[in-house]
Every structure is written in C-alpha cells, then in structure tokens.
C-alpha cells in the first residue's frame, strides 16, 4: 500500500529515479583505505584488467571498515549497492537475503585453497572470493620480554606458567599484552577465544558458539574462563584497553609504550611493517611468534584459528555479474597469490607458495610457518561464527567487559547463556 502511495508521490513531485547505468563500469567498494599495500594490489589488478578488457573501467571506493559496513547495509537494502564489495565470512546475512551472487561456477576454484571455499560455502553455493586469510597469533616483543626477564617460547606456556609470566612482566612495570577494543568487536576476545578453543577442541567450541550441543554452563567452559580470568587479573591488559583502537594496539605493542605480547590476526605485518613514521615498528625490531597460553587439560593444545579475512563478493543485483567474476578470476592466479603474500605479508585464499618468498620478509614467513607447524584449525573467530543477540552479547562481554576486568566468570556465563 505504501509503495503505491509513495511511488505516486514521487511522480507527483517529478523526482522519479533516474539511474543511468554506465555500460561497462564496475564499481567496487572495499575496506583497507589506509593499508597502502592492499590498495596498491587491488588497484594494479584493476588496471591490468582494464587494459586486458578495453572499454571496461573499474571504479574503486576505499573505506574504513565501520563506515564501509554502514554504507553497504543501507545501499544494499536500497538495492543500490556496488557490483563488487568487500565482505567477510561472518556476513551470512548477505547469502540469507540473496544479496550476493553464487560464484560456484564462475570462479576458477582450482587456484583457490579448498578450505577457503568451505568457509564461503552457504547452502548449495559458494559466494566469496577469499583474498585475505589470517591466523590468530601471539606476537612477542622479544627485547621487552628479555627486559622483563621472561621467556615466551614458540610452543607457548601451559597453565600457571603463563600466568606467572604475565605477573612477572606486570611487576616489571611493563604491559604484558597490548590490546584494545576501541573500534573492533573482536580483538579483546582473542585471549579467551584461544583458551576456550584449546580447552574444548574445535568441534565442541564451534558447538558452543553456535548454541548447539555445548552450553556456556559446561564445566570445561568455566575452567577455561577462570584460567583466562587469572591472566586478566594478573594485569595482562593496559588500563586504557577499552578505548585503544586496533591500529593503536599495534603501535602500543611495538613502539610506545611497548608490551611483551600482542594477540592479533596475522594481518599484523600489513600495518606493522610500514615505516616507523607511518606507524610501523622500528627497524631491527625483534619480533617472535608464540603459541600463547595453553590451559591445563586442553583437548587440543595445538588448535589454532584460521579466518578468511577480506574477501570480495559480487552483488546479486549487479548488471555485470560475469564481468565482475572475470575480474576476480584475474586475481586468482598463483602469481597474484605470491604477489599478495609478498606485498601484504598475510596469507591468502589464493593458492600461493610462501616458501618461494625471498628477501627481507622471508624470515617472517619462516617464523609464521614454525608457529603453525602441526596445528589443527578452526575456521573463523567467534564473531564470524555467531549472529544476532549472541554475537552482540559476546562482543560486549567476552570481547570487552571481561578482559577489561569489569565482570567475572559468572556474569559471562549468565549473560552468554541468556543470549541464545
């Protein structure tokens, strides 16, 4: 009823929609506005594609993540989204509402990692092109660790050993773990997430997050939370934890004031390996990677998280769906995969060969490989596996209030249990 009235109204005012579609223009909205190497990667791919396909232009808008998501939510609801846009695997609502195109017979899947296609699978289709992938790592500032008189080995520290290390660092007047949740719904949860995952094992943990078999009242969950609480209460996080932003946490860790550890996605180098005056770590910074805290009685001490990060999806309402898919395919080659690795220092869903990387960052990839040796993976961090009220509650409690020391184990269990 309202549609008719309003449509009539529009005609009456004489302002009916006049969308003039450019014949061969692809629009692309992407996160990473301030990550120069990713911008350059995508823009050079776009340029190559334009050259290979005369008459086609690719118009790219770069955003920060939050504004991008806000713009996409309204634009897609309005049916005016771009042809290609940035998405993450957590955003199943795109698939649920038929907003993105099924790419299962459009992309060159031979060149893409099989786990990435699993993660982007939904119903009968596969919907995303996984450009970025990352693992959750515990980065160590070796120089500061030495100064605090602790050692954080690659294989991690089990049980009380980790708590003691945190205490010792805090007593030395150094922040044990940099972290902040000023602008993201997930980094504060890395610690608890990692512990829960190791304690429960990948399957039970997924079941817990999705509200299936395992409940938040499970005794193992309580033990894991209590262990995390011990670490938090030992003074693990900086007092300004709640307002520190993702980028600031990196800086806090490597430059000022410095922290011994930083649990972060392996996209860490994409910011930290910039030059120091652009917010990167200092030259000669001693970076190590560890397996982090391991709870006692862990079901899966070698469990780690791999997440498909920034991916591109094609708007289901696009007039140029095939062209858009062709552009994505132009990036899905082993050469481009290696180029991505070299430029961005973070894994990718495109099949690539890290060992082929030479030069100044080869050492970093060796460390990363060592930290991932023999690991069993769970796919996606919690906010990527949850939706609606549980996700919101998880963000507010496990990501924010719990690590900030504002609430205890009981409140987390009650709130999370009540959210499903």
């Amino acid at each position, binding site marked *: *009823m*309202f549609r008719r*009235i*309003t449509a009539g*109204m529009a005609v009456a*005012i004489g302002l009916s929609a006049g969308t003039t579609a450019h014949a061969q223009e692809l629009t692309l909205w992407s996160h990473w506005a301030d990550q120069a190497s990713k911008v350059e990667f995508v823009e050079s791919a776009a340029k190559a594609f334009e050259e290979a396909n005369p008459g086609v232009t690719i118009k790219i808008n770069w955003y920060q993540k939050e504004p991008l*998501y*806000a713009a996409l*939510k*309204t634009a*897609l*609801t309005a*049916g005016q989204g771009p042809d290609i846009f940035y998405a993450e695997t*957590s*955003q*199943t*609502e795109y698939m649920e*509402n*038929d*907003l993105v195109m099924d790419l299962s017979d459009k992309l060159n899947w031979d060149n893409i990692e099989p786990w990435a296609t699993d993660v982007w699978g939904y119903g009968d289709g596969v919907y995303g092109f996984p450009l970025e992938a990352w693992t959750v790592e515990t980065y160590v500032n070796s120089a500061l660790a030495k100064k605090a008189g602790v050692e954080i080995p690659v294989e991690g520290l089990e049980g009380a050993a980790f708590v003691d290390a945190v205490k010792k660092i805090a007593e030395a007047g150094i922040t044990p773990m940099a972290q902040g*949740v000023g602008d993201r719904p997930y980094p504060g949860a890395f610690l608890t997430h990692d512990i829960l995952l190791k304690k429960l094992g990948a399957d039970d943990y997924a079941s817990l997050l999705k509200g299936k078999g395992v409940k938040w009242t499970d005794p193992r969950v309580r033990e894991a939370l209590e262990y995390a609480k011990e670490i938090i209460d030992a003074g693990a996080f900086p*007092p*300004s*934890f*709640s*307002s520190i932003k993702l980028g600031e946490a990196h800086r806090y860790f490597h430059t000022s004031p410095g922290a011994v550890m930083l649990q972060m996605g392996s996209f860490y180098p994409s910011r930290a390996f910039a030059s120091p005056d652009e917010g990167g770590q200092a030259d000669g910074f001693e970076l190590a990677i560890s397996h982090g805290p391991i709870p006692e009685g862990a079901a899966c001490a070698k469990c780690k998280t791999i997440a498909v990060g920034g991916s591109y999806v094609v708007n*289901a309402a696009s007039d140029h769906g095939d062209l858009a898919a062709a552009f994505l395919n132009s990036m899905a080659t082993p050469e481009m995969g290696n180029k991505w690795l070299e430029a961005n220092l973070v894994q990718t869903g495109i099949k690539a060969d890290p060992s082929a990387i030479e030069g100044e960052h080869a050492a970093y990839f060796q460390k990363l490989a060592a930290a991932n040796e023999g690991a069993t993976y769970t796919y996606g961090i919690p906010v990527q596996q949850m*939706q*609606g*009220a549980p*996700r*919101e509650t998880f963000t*507010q*409690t496990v990501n*924010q*209030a719990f690590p*900030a020391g*504002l*609430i205890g184990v009981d409140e987390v269990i009650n709130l999370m249990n*009540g959210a499903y």
Partner: protein
Amino acid sequence: MSKTAASALKERDHANPVGAITTFILPALLVYAAFTALPVLRTFYNSTHLIVPNKPSEWVGFTHYTALWSDQIFWKAVWNTLTWAAVAPVLEVVIATLLALCLYAKVPFSRVLRVAWFTPVLMSYVVVGILWMWIYNYEWGALNTMLRAIGLGALAQPWLGHPDTALASLIAVTTWMWTGFNMVVILAAMSSLPSEVLEAAELDNCGWFAKLWYVILPLIRPTLLNLVVLSFIGKMKVFDLVWVTTQGNPLWSTETVSTYVYKRAFQWSTFDLGYPSTIAVIWFVIVLAGVLGLTFLFRQKDRLEY
C-alpha cells in the same frame, strides 16, 4: 502574547481567498506529508512486519512487540536515555541560572564570558564527540593529565571505557554544550523583568538570596520550565554524540534508544527493518507520554500556586 494578537487580528480579517491560502500552504504541506507524515506512518506499518531486502514484507502481527518486551538491551537503552533526560536538564538549568545571575550582576568581562559560555552549542556533535574523546583519553587526555598534575592520579580513569563512568562522562559533555545556551535564555528572561519589582524588593531590604528565591526565580519560572522540557526532548533524541564516541559501549552502559534503533536497522547482521521500527514506535509513545506528563505536572503546580 503574540498568539492573542494574531487571533484578534484574524477575527477582524474577512478576506480569506481559498486560492491564495492553498498556494501559500501547499508546498509546506507537501513537504510535511512526503518527508514527515509518510515516514512516520511507514514506521508504524513496519512495526508489525518483517522487512528484509528482496522479499515482500511479511505481516508478523505483534511478535516484534512481544520480543521487545523481553529485549534486555532495549530496556537498558531506555533506562540510559531516561537517566540522561532526567539528569541533564536539571544540571543544565541550575548551572545556567547561576551563570545568568553572574552576568545579571554585571561581573567584569561579561560580554566575553557570554561568548565563551555560549560557543560550545554551535559545534556539531561529531566535532564535540571527537574532542571529548581526546579529553577523556586515558594516556594523554586533558582530564587525566589534570588529575595527575594535582596529585589525584589515582582517580585517572578510562572515562568512556568503564560502565560506571561512561554515561556520566557523556552527560557532562551535553551539559558542557547546552548550559551556555540555557544561560542566554535565562539572562534574556531576567533582563526583561520589570525593574519596579526588583526595586520594591530592594526597599524591603531583602538579602540577595531572598531576592533571588522569592522574586526573580518565581518570575522567570515559565522560562525555566520551558527550558527543562526543551532539554528533556533534546536528550530523548541523543544519537550523534554516542555514535561518535562509544557506540553504546561498554556493556551497553551508554546505549541510547537512538543508537539501538540505528544498530538494529543498519548495523546488525539481520537486515530487518521491522523490529527497529517497533522500537521507534514504542519510544515515540514513551517520549510523548514524557512530554505530556511534564507539561501536565508543571501546569498543575502553576494552578496550585496561583
């Protein structure tokens, strides 16, 4: 006063050509119908439907309303907003009255002071939000720096990061913004008081406090009450400031109804516009009740006293 003059004028005016009236009022009515009335009706319509992209809207009866009843985040947001709307007007009007008295008593530099006190209200909430985020910054923010400088470093806090202080910190920001505005209004009201009344009070040898309490305040009471209602309405709408600074964090301690509606409509991964519309409708009813209640309360009191 202008109202009565207007109606007197109109009663004597017999020439009311329909054509001219229609021409004059039609543009405003069209704008009103298209961009205010229809959206409001649309929101009411939404509130009983499930509205997701690519599907026709689906009638769900009052399920959104029942869901809202048990939505803890919503009630938390209502509580926060009402706290804000109850505390801020009182703070603003009381401090503004004190400031207005200072200027009324002709303290030195009153022109400069008026400018300094009024300016905050001119800035956009986005600017204000960013600025106060810096002031409240734990490491180098002005507030903590000052506390440390005077030896109260133990009180330094991540002001916007702790659920006990976040809402109060934001209320301090709106008070900062709006007190100067209230002061100017009150000063105008004081300046228009008939001087005979004040002189009579002087002759009675009243103390300054008695003069204030028994003469000035009762005379400017209508203005004060209007300001309270106005500020109340303003605080029931708060969105920008929260959105720029805390987005409702931590632990929903600064969640307002506006931010929650926005989150549910344009940020949560649900895409549904029906449920947030339901929140808006219920909130509309609460605001209406609040304004009517306040107006009624103030009228009652007036009647009792005169």
